[in-house]
């Protein structure tokens, strides 16, 4: 490195960015790997059923398998859209 380059600001440390991105995606993929293969399909089918009654997006459905000691718990949460109570409800 010449003296002029030395005086210029150093380039960004992209290896640090790479490591941080990898840490996040690897952790995410490991957790989804541990869950059963049918979860994505179950999520889509549940969405179809729920949509008959309430309009929600796919992202509103959170479904995962938690391990609780000996048991496996299928946890499902649906964030309902905000709506004002209509007349008669």
């Amino acid at each position, binding site marked *: 490195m010449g003296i002029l380059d030395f005086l210029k600001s150093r380039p960004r440390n992209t290896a640090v960015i790479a490591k941080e*991105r990898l840490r996040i*995606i690897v952790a995410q993929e*490991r957790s989804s790997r541990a869950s059963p293969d049918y979860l994505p399909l179950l999520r889509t089918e549940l969405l179809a059923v729920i949509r008959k009654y309430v309009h929600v997006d796919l992202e509103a459905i959170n479904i995962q398998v938690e391990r609780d000691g000996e048991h496996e718990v299928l946890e499902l949460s649906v964030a309902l859209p905000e709506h004002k109570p209509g007349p008669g409800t």
Partner: protein
Amino acid sequence: MTETIVVTSGKGGVGKTTTSASLATGLAQRGRKVAVIDFDVGLRNLDLIMGCERRVVYDFVNVIHQEATLRQALIRDKRHETLHVLAASQTRDKEALTRDGVQRVLEELAAEGFDYIVCDSPAGIEKGAFLAMYFADRALVVVNPEVSSVRDSDRILGLLASKTRKAESGEGGVPAHLLLTRYNPVRVEAGQMLGIRDVEEVLGLPVVGVIPEHESVLMASNQGVPVILDEGSQAGQAYADAIARLLGEERPLRFTEAPRKGLFKRMFGS
């Protein structure tokens, strides 16, 4: 006892075949009887790296389909008489491999008294890659210090732990070692490349060896001589170290630090 070692990575072009060739050669240099099998059906390349491409008559798929005997298909290495190459088929599609067929060939090699079987996996996670790892006793996961390679390696580590015979029989999956290849210490110090610790931390495994990025690797493949035989080269020595560690010997890591520059060079040189 025969030990089956799969060399795998997920991503292509990271150095699986180079590693398989040097691993098999290094084990044979130690007097072990070794067979190295190319699982990349349709894209045969191990024969070129081993320098025996003109001596392939029968291949792995011929043996599986009983069109040739194992003895007919095994190519004896010109440099080490205990080393044998089983080439991949160039004409068939990858569906030509079957689990039963692969198992039968591996069992036959064991009965022939081979100490090591090195399975050179194709890239990807399709049938060839699956069968290369399925019967393995150990895995060598080749990874480059680069985001897509590291991510794919993690995927492969997951498959080794779940989709192999050792996993299905409740032995907890195939024990895996990381081999970091194409490592450039100068770029690591400049913050342009993931370092050894970075890769180890992300994947949660220690490295069994670090092979520096070096022109000797390309020069060796040009000539069909496994780079471990270039004993003067850093890459060749790093492979020899990695194999020693795989066999339980302790060796310090070499060629992983950037060469020190003097103050003058740092200020004015490049």
